[in-house]
């Protein structure tokens, strides 16, 4: 299983990467991931690669990822460049109308910002998308992800993080586009 996460620095890409990697490990799988450190907080494009299984190197080649998670809609092209034919892309967006049609991939938007606004937890958007991804793809074990979120979250935001994940898991307001 190969997953890329694209976004902008300082907005939770690394946190999500570590949650997914931990969830895989808790589920008894081997995992290896590549992270972008250093420039992370300066708002630059960042991308994480996660490979679940018996891999030696963390990097995913272009057109090789099974799943692409895109935390900022401005970074969708980056996410899609790694996605394989027929791969699934989950994006923090209200609509796909502004995007050029991509019939070769299944892109699913979820309005994570709306949900985090309701929950008053803007930094939880990445977990909303993770919830939706986990539900839609069976790529990760739900309980393991919940455990991983608990482990990784600071005490003051742990409950809110879990809420965001569950809201994303329970349902979205959009169905996957073709």
């Amino acid at each position: 299983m190969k997953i890329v996460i694209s976004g902008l620095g300082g907005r939770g890409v690394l946190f999500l990467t570590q949650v997914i990697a931990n969830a895989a490990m808790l589920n008894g799988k081997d995992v290896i991931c590549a992270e972008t450190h250093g420039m992370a907080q300066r708002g630059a494009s960042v991308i994480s690669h996660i490979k679940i299984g018996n891999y030696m190197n963390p990097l995913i080649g272009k057109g090789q990822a099974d799943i692409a998670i895109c935390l900022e809609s401005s970074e969708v092209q980056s996410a899609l460049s790694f996605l394989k034919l027929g791969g699934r892309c989950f994006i923090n967006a209200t609509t796909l109308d502004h995007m050029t049609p991509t019939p070769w991939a299944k892109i699913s938007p979820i309005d994570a910002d709306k949900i985090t606004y309701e929950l008053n937890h803007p930094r939880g958007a990445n977990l909303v998308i993770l919830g939706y991804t986990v539900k839609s793809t069976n790529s990760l074990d739900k309980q393991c992800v919940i455990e991983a979120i608990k482990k990784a979250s600071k005490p003051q935001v742990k409950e809110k993080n879990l809420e965001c994940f569950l809201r994303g898991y329970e349902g979205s307001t959009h169905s996957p586009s073709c």
Partner: protein
Amino acid sequence: MAVELLIGNGAIARGLIEQGCEVATAYPGTPSTEVLEEVARFKKQLGVNTYVEWSVNEKIAFDVAFAASMTGKRSATAMKQVGLNVASDSLTRSAYTGVIGGMIIIPCDDPGPHSSQTEQDSRILAMFAKIPALDPATTREAHKIVKYAYELSERWEIPVILRPSIRICHSRQPVELNEPSNKKRIAKFKKDPHRWAATPQYTLKLHKILNEKIQKIHEEFENESALNYILNNDSQSTLGIIASGSAFSCLYDILTEKALKIPLMKITTVFPLPVKKVQNFINKFERVLVLEEPGPAIELQIIDRTRVMGRLDNVVPSEGELLPDVIYDILSKVLDKKILTKEKTPELAYKAVPPSLCPGCAHRAAFFAIRKALPNAIFTSDIGCYTLGLNMKAVDTVINMGASITIATGLSHAFRADGLDHPIIATIGDSTFFHAGIPPLLNAHITQARFILVILDNGCVAMTGFQPTPATGVQADGRSTPQASIRKLVEACGIKLIEEIDPYKVDEFIQILKKARAYTRDENGGVVAIIAKHPCVLLEPVQKKIKIKIIEKCNGCGYCLSFCECPALSMNPETEKVEVDYKICVDCGICIECCPPEAIVEDKL
């Protein structure tokens, strides 16, 4: 056995603690920073007594660790690859004197580069210095190899370079944890001036001893089959591949996935290369490809290269990272067939967002004032978050640590030799100033250079993750330390005119800069130092919040976007007016100063 998800730097740190490292030093620098941070974390978690130190610069970090090895203790020092350049005087000498307690040097390479001013290969520096170099291919291997590195170092009394590249430094993998060693070595110093204070005649003797050591280590490596081995050995292939480091692991995954049974030799002991073993492998094939990064360290040591393909004959590109796609291309070229999947996804036009200064960053205010006050100046700058002043066109040169001051000095002398007087403003961060700015400032003063130095003091080493500076008063493991004073150091260098200002006070700063410029032109003037002090906005959020709004007056001139360049401001292409992204605006109010028609105002609700 306990297992933890560790990044490569953390795996190395864990290895150091497990193998009884008693002294660990470093200077922050991507991709090495986490090594010392993880040592400090494990120190606390496991209750071990490891001495940890953020040194003022890498040369110092190296010497402190080296001295510990002189006393018989195991030590380690970590830095980014260009940091090893800073320590190179110490590096080369350490090979001659050798060590007693094991010493591991951890220079982290950055093929790409992702975050460095060169793509140099630290293994080639190891060759130059005559120090053995180990090249782990994965996070787990980096953890495991620390034991061998210390044993090698002590067996031959020579420091050892353990070189991870960024894809190992920042690659996370489950690692099996071992108990930390509780073996303590009591420090002792045996007087031996022919060794530790070798003058030329003894240096010659030491050099002979060093050459013999390298010979013997070479023989050891020839027989080290746990570290250098062949996979897919029984193939009928006419092509063989030799690889090391992350290039090896990337290639391995590709060969496995594509079911390509090409004989693959893994090299972990890159210097001195087991050349006999390698040549035996090469002689079995018509052609052999060498894959390593970022330079041709293995390739250069191969004795007969007639069948070898690599960087030296341009089969492998000589710059840039060996990403999977690059390796696919190389393999396709070499195998004369496309090995990517038949159906490729469409090419997508993608423009990555470059990094920029955070909303509320005081450097933004400082650069705005600098450009406003002296728009025609040459802006020599340095390495840190403020390098991003490039986006505001307030940075003209970034060469290496401390070069903001040395280049300003050199430019000043060059212009003045022709009787010209060009305004020059050097900008340097607090940590960079401590690291490499003090001798340059002293030099500037005594050679009577004329320029304005702005020390941007945000109280931390920000870009690498807010590590403490010598002025902070705390060390890597949280213990208290005395605090250095930037002002006192500037005074000590002889600078006569020193100003201190909070850069948020933009108008005041502009006046100070103009006064400073006059001083640099004055017959009795000299270098002016302005200490622009304001804490990093990510560490200390804005105290006095000023909510802003953009009013009708906005004529879409875009001045604020070019000269303030805050990520929270953007142009709405439909309304042709600038608007604010309140999700990231931190209410610093700096942009109010940056609008000529005064269309950015405080929103007094």
